[in-house]
């Protein structure tokens, strides 16, 4: 089978328009005959559900939390990109496109990224119209800042709470449709199976998390907007409920999983403080605009940071990358921190941290300006660590943050199962091997507000999802039975280890061998170790409580079971990709200076994995990436 991405013909900048011109439309009166199932209410799902209901579709929406407003998107801090060029600093759609493709180390589909950049401006217009309180200048116009190493200021932000404000905008639009009757909302539901009828996605089985009941919902198409899978590492900046289950269940039903090994490790997070640690907290990347990263010049120097004179400090990012300094992209900054700590220069009790120092900024701007810019972040830091970052430098370390991989989708956001569309972080599409800051919010909202309405309409108008399907059909029985079976099995193992203990062990394997730096031997070890752990899980896990009641431990048990399968696929993907690109760093493939060595001749493709009965034998499909508009160059931030 060859993967058909359905990229429209024509010059890059005209492809999306060309698509829109040709896309089939659903008659307005017919839209209400179509039921669309949307799983997830983050930026992607919330915006999609609201927009589709506005158009007249009947929409059912599911989410894990007690309210759609609590999706993980709420936690995004820094901002959202758009090519408005309000600051007059030379930004264009092309430049945003180019930066994103380059930032992704040329492993994204060119046409998708261009569309994303072209839509970016509409997103800002839409959000402002909804009343999203973006930061403004004194004259009343919108303010922009530079973010994540971009050389133009194109990031729109709402203090350090951009995700919150954008999500509340989408949530309110969604609730408006609930009131209008276009959306039926099902909170505290977890999708456990996809239902495929005659080869097309036609329904879902969800568990009512309060009663434990398995509910069946039939529809004409399913939109998976279930976020990323960073929690496979146990510790990450993701919310505790973020998981891969919905995507993984679809993968097991035939949806290809693309580039699972591309994991973004964010350079500025609060370091791990102990073994009971349950999650990690991001300190926004914007801090690198004014903070300087350093470690002591001598390994093992245990003096307090203030006692180390300037001449005995190593500002290693500024030293290695004089061009970009502290603003190098995330993958580069993270790896540099790891290398320097592995070499024994790390600071703090664990030696797994570097300093992020604001002393110069405070000297230059004054404490009150610094407080204005970063006050809430400094407070958050102090709340968690008990230390005051105005007095002493922050200690930071990289942490798992975002997953560029996800279910494979074509240009229309449709997976390899017809009728199953995948939006937001759950798909693989736009960020290649490394995502630039402030581009995930942009992608989620582009997918949900502006792309899916046309591509879903085209699918339906072309006959997709036609013919009535009832939730009593055999395919629903089969899916519900499979979900029921797994639940029963988990409850019956009655072993001695908790779900969290397994999860933590898996996370450690992933972090050590499938983390910031990978090699063949380590990956082979990880594949074995994960398979062993998975076998142990089904013999030794202890899941207390009942299935017909609220039982969060049971929910997590199911998610960890799926992570135990995903982890192995990530390791296999990382093993097969014998090059370094973006966040995927294979130690065997580096330049003499220790930078990533891409191998475009052999690996300029999307790796899309098809699941088989045997976890050890997934089938690789390749979507070749051809670049018409940009030259593949080596990223250099020197």
């Amino acid at each position, binding site marked *: 089978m060859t993967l058909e991405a359905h990229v429209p013909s024509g010059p890059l900048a005209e492809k999306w328009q060309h698509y829109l011109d040709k896309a089939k439309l659903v008659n307005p009166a017919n839209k209400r005959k179509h039921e669309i199932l949307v799983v997830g209410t983050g930026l992607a799902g919330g915006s999609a559900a609201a*927009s589709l209901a506005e158009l007249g579709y009947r929409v059912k929406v599911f989410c894990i939390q*007690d309210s759609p407003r609590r999706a993980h998107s709420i936690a995004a801090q820094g901002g959202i990109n758009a090519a408005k060029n309000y600051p007059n600093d030379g930004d264009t759609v092309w430049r945003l496109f180019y930066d994103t493709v380059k930032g992704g180390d040329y492993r994204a589909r060119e046409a998708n990224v261009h569309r994303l950049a072209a839509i970016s401006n509409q997103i800002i217009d839409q959000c*402002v119209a909804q009343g999203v309180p973006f*930061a403004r200048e004194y004259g009343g116009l919108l303010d922009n800042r530079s973010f994540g190493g971009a050389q133009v200021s194109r990031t729109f932000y709402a203090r350090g709470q951009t995700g919150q404000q954008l999500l509340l905008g989408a949530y309110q639009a969604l609730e408006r449709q609930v009131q209008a009757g276009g959306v039926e*909302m099902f909170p505290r539901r977890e999708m456990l199976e996809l239902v495929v009828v005659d080869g097309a996605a036609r329904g879902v089985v969800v568990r009512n998390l309060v009663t434990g009941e398995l509910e069946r919902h039939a529809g004409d198409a399913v939109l998976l907007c279930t976020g990323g899978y960073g929690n496979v590492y146990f510790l990450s900046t993701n*919310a505790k409920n973020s998981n891969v289950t919905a995507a993984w269940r679809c993968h097991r039903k035939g949806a290809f999983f693309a580039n699972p090994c591309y994991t973004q490790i964010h350079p500025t997070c609060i370091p791990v403080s102990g073994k009971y640690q349950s999650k990690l907290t991001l300190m926004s990347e914007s801090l690198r605009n004014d903070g300087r990263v350093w470690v002591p010049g001598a390994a093992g120097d245990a003096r307090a940071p203030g006692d180390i004179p300037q001449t005995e400090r190593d500002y290693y990012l500024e030293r290695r990358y004089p061009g970009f300094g502290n603003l190098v992209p995330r993958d580069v900054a993270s790896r540099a921190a790891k290398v320097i700590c592995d070499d024994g220069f790390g600071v703090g009790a664990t030696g797994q941290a570097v300093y992020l120092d604001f002393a110069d900024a405070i000297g230059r701007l004054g404490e009150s300006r610094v407080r204005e810019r970063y006050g809430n972040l400094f407070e958050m830091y102090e709340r*968690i660590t008990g230390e005051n970052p105005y007095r002493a430098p922050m200690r930071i370390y990289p942490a798992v943050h975002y997953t560029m991989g996800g279910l494979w989708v074509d240009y229309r956001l449709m997976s390899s199962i017809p009728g199953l569309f995948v939006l937001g972080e759950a798909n693989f599409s736009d960020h290649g091997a490394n995502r630039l800051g402030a581009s995930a919010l942009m992608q989620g909202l582009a997918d949900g507000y502006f792309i899916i309405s046309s591509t879903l309409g085209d699918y339906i108008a072309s006959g997709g999802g036609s013919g009535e399907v009832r939730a009593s059909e055999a395919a629903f029985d089969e899916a519900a039975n499979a979900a029921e079976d797994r639940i029963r099995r988990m409850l019956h193992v009655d072993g001695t280890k908790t779900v969290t203990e397994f999860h933590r062990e898996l996370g450690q394997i992933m972090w050590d061998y499938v983390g910031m730096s990978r090699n063949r031997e380590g990956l082979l070890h990880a594949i074995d170790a994960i398979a062993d752990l998975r076998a142990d899980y089904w013999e030794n896990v202890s899941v*207390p409580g009942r299935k017909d009641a609220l039982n969060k431990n049971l929910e997590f048990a199911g998610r960890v079971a799926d992570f135990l399968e995903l982890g192995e696929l990530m390791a296999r993907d990382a093993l097969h990709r014998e090059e370094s690109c973006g966040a995927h760093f294979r130690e065997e493939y580096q330049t003499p200076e220790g930078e990533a060595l891409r191998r475009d001749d052999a690996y300029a493709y999307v790796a899309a994995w098809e699941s088989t009965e045997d976890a050890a034998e997934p089938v690789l499909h390749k979507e070749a990436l051809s670049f018409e508009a940009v030259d593949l160059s080596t990223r250099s931030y020197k």
Partner: protein
Amino acid sequence: MAQTMTIHFKIWRQSGPDAKGKLVDYTLDNLNEDMSFLEALDVLNETLIHKGEEDPVEFDNDCREGICGSCGVVVGGIAHGPMKATAVCQLHMRHYKDGDTIVVEPFRAEAFPIVKDLVVDRSAFDRIIAAGGYVSVDTGGAPDANSLPVPKNDVDEAFDFATCIGCGACVASCPNASASLFTGAKIAHLAHLPQGQAERKQRVVRMVDQMQAEGFGDCSNHGECEAVCPKQISIAAIAKMRREYLRAVFG
């Protein structure tokens, strides 16, 4: 190394909405001051699972960064616990002493029925928003974002109200179980912006009516809500809501 501490918990256990609940004692001697409060509850649950006699304690949480509004319990008689401007997921054990006793209870209000243990049903909040907490613009068609300048002060003020995380602490702390701070915050957010003007009147009337229909009490200016709000939303939101309501009904 962080100091090890022993803490005595008294935690509300209730198996379902209609079951009788009670406070149950648990002592943990392996906590430390760097842990968050929810991590201490994680430790308790791990211990309970290993013992195998009792089910783990259910409590809502997700971001553990004080922004999603999932978490919310009453700790030592105060919604979200003793630290000002801090959601309970951001509370750390260093604020307690070795040997302390901590009472943990759910948010209590008629409009927030208990689901299980510390988990309550806050869906009434969603219905209040659905009644009118938005600007009715469909996707597409919005004018250029800079076509409508908004004075910085107005946006800043709107923002202060828009930071509400919908956790429900205001309701739990109010002697009347009023949802006025929550509802007022959304009304004030949108009333401060030009985008919110077109629907200003109907919004406040619908949202206030819905709030009452959900069984929340009236506000009688106790001010407890402002004191516990993890986002420090000012009680000025409630005054704004009242003014907007009067203006809509009589104006």
